[in-house]
């Protein structure tokens, strides 16, 4: 298969997106640190400020994970299909406009209804924020949603133009009818899956956002709260999961460079991705185990699919990674190390997630730190590590040469402190420490204080990754 070279405009946009990614990640990490410090009793934060930071941290991280994942997807998908750079730029611009609305609603309008904007909280602030602030927040999210819809429309169009239909770009002829044609490359399979599930998620998400805006403007139009929660989690769960399914493309594309072994789409790989695309859409009820009004069958489905949903893709990816690096004489540098770490971070994060996806456990653990523990696990050590690995890959051939000791030390600092940080969450959850509390009991505070130290080191390492990227990028630009 011929690989198409990237146009200069596209490259420049990708670099800009990664700089935006690093800056937002660092800011949001600092917001997280401030919250942990406050819970640890080290600093005192007014409760309203805590919830504003909680909202900003949540929405900021989810949004930027989406942007980071899209960057990776676009960069590699562009090698196989004709994507439009203009659409990518529009996506970025709309994303930034949406983010500005969201930030204004939080820090100027005092909105603090959490990123999940669960109905009916945004419209019932008891005077903490105005309805206008809530509408601005929801509109901001809507604009970000439109940005991503455009992105996936372009991806879907380009994939169909080349492969004819989604069934072919998912490799169904090879999977189901023994077609002897070469299967589409992993990047195309993964991109197709994400395009499908995220388009569905975004359409549902946009609908509930508009419904909530109408409800705030005219409360006579009531919304069934359970329906609203279902729609929000269908959108939210799918979207955040899809960020990993986009970022994983970096592993499929970059590791072969290091080991000189191609990552091929075999039948097991294709079957895994098809299975995961269905399961990621129906697993969301595991967010609603506390809602006794949910139909039992949906909850049981949520539990069963929680056990199986990640597994197909996770398994083929983990085993694939092991197979591709085993005795390959892989050259270890920051990029390859971060990518291999990310696969195991993702795999590791699934274990606490599966435990939490069990109804009987969830009844007890749902509102404890265990839950932020599991999603920080596969977001920090998995998803974000993938993007940083991708960034190191982009600057690999700069004239500043090889990674130096600083990069190597930062990698280990990041790995160890991120692991420590998420285990503090999990340990707190095991002790029954509640999540989303602005102020902690004295006996809880030591957990948060220790976590803050780990968080500080994570931030330092992430700052090194980001700054090294920007400096080496500049050097590279000067060269060309």
């Amino acid at each position, binding site marked *: 298969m011929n690989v198409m070279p990237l146009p200069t405009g596209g490259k420049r946009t990708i670099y800009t997106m990664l700089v935006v990614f690093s800056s937002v990640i660092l800011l949001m990490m600092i917001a997280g640190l401030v919250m942990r410090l406050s819970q640890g009793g080290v600093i005192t934060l007014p409760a309203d400020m805590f919830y504003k930071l909680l909202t900003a941290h949540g929405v900021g991280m989810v949004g930027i994970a989406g942007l980071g994942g899209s960057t990776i997807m676009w960069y590699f998908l562009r090698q196989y299909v004709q994507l439009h750079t203009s*659409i990518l730029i529009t996506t970025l611009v709309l994303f930034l406009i949406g983010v500005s609305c969201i930030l204004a609603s939080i820090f100027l309008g005092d909105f603090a209804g959490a990123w999940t904007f669960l109905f009916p909280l945004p419209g019932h602030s008891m005077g903490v924020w105005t309805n206008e602030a809530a509408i601005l927040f929801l509109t901001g999210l809507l604009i970000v949603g439109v940005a991503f819809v455009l992105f996936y*429309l372009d991806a*879907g*169009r380009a994939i*169909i133009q*080349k492969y004819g239909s*989604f069934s*072919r770009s998912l490799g169904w002829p090879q999977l189901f009818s023994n077609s002897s044609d070469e299967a589409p490359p992993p990047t195309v399979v993964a991109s197709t899956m994400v395009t*499908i599930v995220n388009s569905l998620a975004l359409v549902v998400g946009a609908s509930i956002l508009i419904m909530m805006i109408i409800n705030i403007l005219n409360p006579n139009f009531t919304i069934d709260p359970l329906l609203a929660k279902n729609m929000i989690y269908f959108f939210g769960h799918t979207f955040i999961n899809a960020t990993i399914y986009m970022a994983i493309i970096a592993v499929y594309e970059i590791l072969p460079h290091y080991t000189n072994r191609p990552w091929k789409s075999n039948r097991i790989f294709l079957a895994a991705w098809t299975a995961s695309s269905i399961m990621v859409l129906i697993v969301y009820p595991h967010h609603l185990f506390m809602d006794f009004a949910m139909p039992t069958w949906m909850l049981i489905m949520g539990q069963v699919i929680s056990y199986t949903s990640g597994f197909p893709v996770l398994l083929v990816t983990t085993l694939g990674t092991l197979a591709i690096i085993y005795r390959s004489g892989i050259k270890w540098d920051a990029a390859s190390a971060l990518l291999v770490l990310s696969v195991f971070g993702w795999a590791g994060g699934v274990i606490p997630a599966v435990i939490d996806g069990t109804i009987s456990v969830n009844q007890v653990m749902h509102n404890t730190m265990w839950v932020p523990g599991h999603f920080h696990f596969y977001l920090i050590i998995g998803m974000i590590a993938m993007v940083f690995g991708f960034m190191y890959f982009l600057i690999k051939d700069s004239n500043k040469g090889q990674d130096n000791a600083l990069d190597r030390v930062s990698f280990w600092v990041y790995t160890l402190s991120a692991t420590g940080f998420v285990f503090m969450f999990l340990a707190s959850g095991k002790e029954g420490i509640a999540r989303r509390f602005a102020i902690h009991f004295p006996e809880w505070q030591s957990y948060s204080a220790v976590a803050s130290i780990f968080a500080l080191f994570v931030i330092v390492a992430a700052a090194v990754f980001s700054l090294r990227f920007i400096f080496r990028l500049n050097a590279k630009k000067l060269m060309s």
Partner: protein
Amino acid sequence: MVLQQNMLSHMLLQIPLLILIGIIIGLSLNTRYHIKVTYSYALPGLLIASFSLLFWMLPRSLDASLSYPSYAVAKFTTLPLLIGIPLALCWHAITAITKGFFITQIISMLMVLAWLYIESPIRLCNYYLINEQQQLGYALLFLTLFISIYYSSKLFYCTHPSSRENTTDERQDVS
């Protein structure tokens, strides 16, 4: 006129039929005069259609078309002229992304409209009964489901014409 006695047939039969008339006129104009619309006019054309549709989606406008003859005349002329004809002339002239964008927007909008009609505690149209309004809501919900399933399955099974050449080229490359 019979179609206007019930909200469901007013919204889901009369209005679509009027639009369809416009589409047929537009298509026949197209075959006779070979009108070629460029993208710079096609997109605004579709936007005109969207705005006109939005206007007639306001419950107020629907009521007014029953109360005032001027509104009734406006309805019978603008639906074919401002929605049907632009649709027929402009739809094929826009890019696949814009088409996709319109389709996703329409799906979300229909979903929200369905909810509005089902949940509204007040009568939206003074001329129609509240249970007709709910029937309309459920009808819209089914329409949304139908459109979504139709388009998603199309993406899975309709092979894009230009891709056939591409894939055969590749097959030759491989062999």
